[in-house]
């Protein structure tokens, strides 16, 4: 069986099975399992405007800092009080202060001290300056992290579509945190 040693990657260096991990975690704590959205197909719309002329919109799950809503700093525990439940929009040139204390990011392995790691607005602005994309939509949009798939599908997603259309977006970059 022995042969030349092949320098394969480590056996455990595979994508984390977040659904299994989360299911096991909450079951151990005594909670019923969450059901993740699941489809076996997906819609597809080809890009019809070259990016160098396209207007691109950005959608985030990050939340605007709310002074009254408790600890939202980079080492804050999960802060449900900082959640939001309605789509919001803000000007892309407003230098937004967005936090992610309201979601279950990986607190064991990362400290969210750099907005740009979860909200690529500055990089998008550089791409516009470089001529890589035509322009940014005037506003970015915040998508609520609602546990109800029904609310997401029937209320939030149509509202995001409405706002992206209003802004004349040719393409949208979505960045969950």
């Amino acid at each position: 069986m022995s042969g030349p040693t092949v320098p394969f990657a480590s056996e455990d260096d595979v994508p984390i099975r977040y659904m299994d991990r989360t299911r096991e975690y909450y079951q151990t704590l005594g909670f019923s399992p969450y059901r993740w959205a699941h489809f076996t197909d997906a819609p597809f719309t080809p890009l019809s405007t070259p990016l160098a002329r396209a207007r691109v919109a950005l959608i985030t799950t990050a939340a605007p800092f709310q002074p009254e809503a408790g600890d939202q700093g980079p080492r804050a525990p999960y802060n449900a009080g900082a959640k939001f439940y309605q789509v919001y929009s803000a000007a892309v040139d407003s230098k937004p202060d967005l936090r992610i204390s309201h979601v279950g990011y990986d607190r064991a392995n990362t400290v969210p001290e750099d907005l740009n790691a979860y909200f690529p607005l500055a990089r998008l602005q550089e791409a516009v300056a470089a001529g890589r994309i035509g322009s940014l939509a005037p506003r970015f949009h915040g998508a609520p992290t609602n546990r109800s798939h029904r609310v997401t599908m029937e209320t939030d997603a149509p509202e995001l579509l409405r706002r992206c259309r209003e802004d004349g977006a040719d393409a949208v970059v979505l960045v969950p945190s």
Partner: protein
Amino acid sequence: MGLATRHLEANGIPTVIMGCAKDIVEHCGVPRFVWSDFPLGNSAGRPFDVESQAQTLELALRLLETAPAARTTVSSPLGWTAEAAWKHRFLDVGKLSPEEIAERRKEFDVVKAVAKAKREGA
């Protein structure tokens, strides 16, 4: 986010989602996905690493231009650390004592109550 991206795309706007949770995003089924094998919270690149953020965005832009079909995933070539040890530390329930489990359960009950109050007040 997967549901929102599907809705936009179904209504004629091309989309790309940048994320770290490969299984969750692909389970939902999205048109275009740039996957970074980073801890959740770093969908747009490594913190304080402008070059990695620019590279990750460029993958997303290339994907918008070139995806041949729905459910196309591009895996970023960037890694988080040389070792994979970090991958065991996320929600590692095996490491918790019964007391810690009880404590976390209480904390989560509080979190749920706070979220519910905020949601209903919204």
